[in-house]
């Protein structure tokens, strides 16, 4: 078991770089296979970008990441001080029903974030949003290859 932490200032144009590096190092240390590592990084990228743009509305704020291995899975906990927001409440169906030629440009991030992680949890604790992403490890140490979008948000 191990844990690692990262605190980033969400006032920059993009925190994708440090978040991607952090999740990459976490996945490597945890022995996560290439595919689930890709989807964990994508989920972290989307959740943190959503916090910075919509949660903090571009005005900046702290985003805390903590990751590690426990109970047969790799977890990544992302916390922020923006107004309470449960990503599972986002319904992509209306957007998907519209042809791309007339769609709005954005709104895909949360769909991708929740689409492939094995488990997603949301809590509002002590005035903070806490998003927890989990990728399970099999007994052989290899991670699952991700799950279908229909299982997203089932926690």
């Amino acid at each position: 078991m191990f844990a690692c932490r990262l605190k980033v200032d969400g006032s920059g144009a993009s925190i994708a770089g440090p978040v991607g590096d952090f999740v990459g190092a976490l996945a490597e240390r945890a022995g996560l296979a290439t595919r689930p590592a890709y989807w964990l990084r994508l989920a972290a990228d989307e959740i943190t970008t959503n916090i910075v743009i919509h949660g903090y509305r571009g005005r900046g704020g702290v985003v805390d990441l903590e990751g590690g291995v426990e109970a047969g899975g790799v977890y990544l906990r992302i916390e922020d001080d923006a107004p309470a927001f449960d990503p599972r409440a986002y319904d992509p169906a209306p957007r998907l029903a519209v042809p791309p030629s007339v769609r709005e440009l954005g709104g895909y991030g949360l769909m991708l974030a929740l689409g492939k992680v094995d488990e997603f949890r949301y809590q509002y604790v002590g005035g903070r949003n806490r998003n927890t992403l989990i990728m399970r490890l099999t007994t052989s140490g290899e991670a699952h290859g991700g799950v279908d979008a229909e299982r997203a948000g089932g926690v």
Partner: protein
Amino acid sequence: MAFKAKMRIEGSTATVRLEGELDGRSAPELNELVVRAADQRVERLVLLLEDLSYMSSAGIRSLVFAHQKMPEETEILLVGTRPDVAETIRLTGFDRSIVMRETLEA
């Protein structure tokens, strides 16, 4: 891996080769090329993605942007898309509006 995007326009086709990671930092670069291609009134936009290792929702937004910036009859072709990037596109339902091929000749 650093992002690189290089565009070549021949006749009515704009071909853009993407390398590295397409995310919030790099997507504006692709959008600029899309605007240039649209200004040239190309009929076909080919994106060569063999060396694109990562695409976030910012990349999906670029594809939607291209779809809306180009005339409706413009064909958008994605070539050599890696499995995880292709799955990202499929999750957003955008695969129904573009053509994905393994090779340019296929």
